[in-house]
């Protein structure tokens, strides 16, 4: 197993340059930023609304960009060239994930500035966001491997955006039907609950369980992705 930062950086650089010219994919960033402006101007901002925008960023920017860049490499037959080079799949995906993380981070910072969101503990929130991003990177990679074209990718990602991006609306259902209480364990809901506790000034002792659940989601998404890839490779 090789791991060369030079190759990872080369792929990072290429993807960043390519995305800057690929408006179909990169313009997704506008979506959460618009939402941030909209909410910021219309309402008295609260944590719930902050996290509407943050969760939307994760589901749209993180998952979609990751999914679309992988699908495009398949659609344009460029992935094979990379795979035949000394770069390993891990290096290729790491390079791509770093681009996605970079763009997500920029979007999150911009949205937070627009909405005036300043968490009580930036460190804690950053940890939770990073773990969440890993989960969405996993989902994006999985769906990217499953779709053959960018258009397919932008359709297959829609359920993810609805479920995780607008998922806080689902909490209304949980209050009505207790049988749906598992929804509380979804990563987007966990992230909101975590954020509330941070604002209450709670420490790691009260926060770790949310982080553990988020981490579990990230690990599961990576395992499923690896499994699907192996299975596809054998076909």
């Amino acid at each position: 197993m090789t791991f060369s930062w030079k190759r990872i950086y080369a792929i990072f650089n290429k993807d960043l340059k390519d995305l800057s010219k690929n408006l179909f994919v990169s313009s997704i960033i506008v979506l959460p930023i618009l939402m941030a402006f909209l909410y910021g101007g219309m309402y008295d901002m609260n944590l719930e609304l902050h996290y509407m925008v943050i969760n939307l960023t994760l589901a749209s920017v993180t998952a979609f960009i990751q999914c679309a860049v992988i699908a495009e490499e398949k659609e344009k037959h460029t992935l094979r060239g990379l795979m035949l080079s000394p770069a390993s799949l891990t290096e290729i995906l790491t390079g791509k994930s770093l681009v996605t993380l970079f763009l997500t981070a920029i979007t999150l910072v911009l949205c937070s500035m627009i909405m005036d969101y300043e968490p009580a503990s930036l460190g804690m929130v950053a940890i939770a966001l990073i773990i969440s991003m890993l989960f969405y990177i996993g989902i994006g990679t999985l769906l990217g491997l499953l779709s053959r074209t960018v258009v397919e990718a932008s359709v297959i990602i829609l359920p993810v955006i609805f479920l995780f991006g607008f998922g806080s609306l689902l909490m209304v259902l949980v209050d009505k039907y207790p049988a749906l209480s598992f929804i509380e364990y979804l990563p987007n809901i966990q992230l909101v609950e975590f954020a509330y506790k941070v604002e209450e000034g709670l420490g790691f002792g009260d926060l770790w369980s949310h982080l553990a659940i988020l981490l579990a989601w990230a690990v599961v998404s990576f395992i499923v992705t690896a499994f699907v890839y192996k299975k596809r490779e054998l076909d």
Partner: protein
Amino acid sequence: MENIIEVKNLAKVFGNQSALEDVNFQVKKGETFGFLGPSGSGKTTTIKILTGQLLQTSGDAEVFGVKNTALNTAAYRKRIGVLSDNSGLYQRLSIEENLKLYCDLYDVPRKRMEEVLDLVNLSGERKKVVSKLSKGMTQRVLLARTLLHEPDLLFLDEPTSALDPANSKQIHDGLRLLNEKGTTIFLTTHDMSEAETLCNRVAFLNKGKIQLLDEPKTLRRQFADGSVRLELKNGQIISLPGGAEGADEVYKYMSNNEIVSIHSNEPTLGDIFVEITGRELV
């Protein structure tokens, strides 16, 4: 001579459809080996097996003395160059940006870019965005990319199928130069004249097996039937069989001074292929 590629009883089945049945051949160090066969005969499949992109159903394939099942390493991929039949470039980036990525992936200095661009005659277009290139130019950029790291062994899957004769010739010249410098080339093509001009040996693949394998000139000699073609002064062109009967006819025309030109009817590789397989090689 050292064998770079050795293939024994290679078979590949997709689902319930057999693509390769029993393929056997060796490629020697330093040669240009032509792998010919009609569409769907398994040429690309063979390349994929030899380059670690696909596993065979049964049989053995070795490259550089290593079993293909153990080939999926960075070290192996640094020694080979693959131009597959549907390789792609990054359409929104320039030629130069595409090549820079591969310089970094293969860890070769950026100045190699100039050399390969010269080789495919694209030095002047380096800043052009790939989506604006013609098909032939795209193919030449792909070839340049394949040559960046100076591979010992080149796999070329129909390298000139999209090119006009002038561009094909230029690529042929480049490939001949590389071959003279010691690069071993494994080439698939539909183009019989390409095979004749470039290849030291050719193999005919059909129905899952190698039907024939030899040097082009040996094959042509082997399949020559001794017939000749005459062009007569009255404009007629006639073909005469070899042997006493044909010789008598030639004698007759020649004594009457009726002949404008006389040529031996050497079979082309295409003719031989049709004769062996009963199929046109398209």
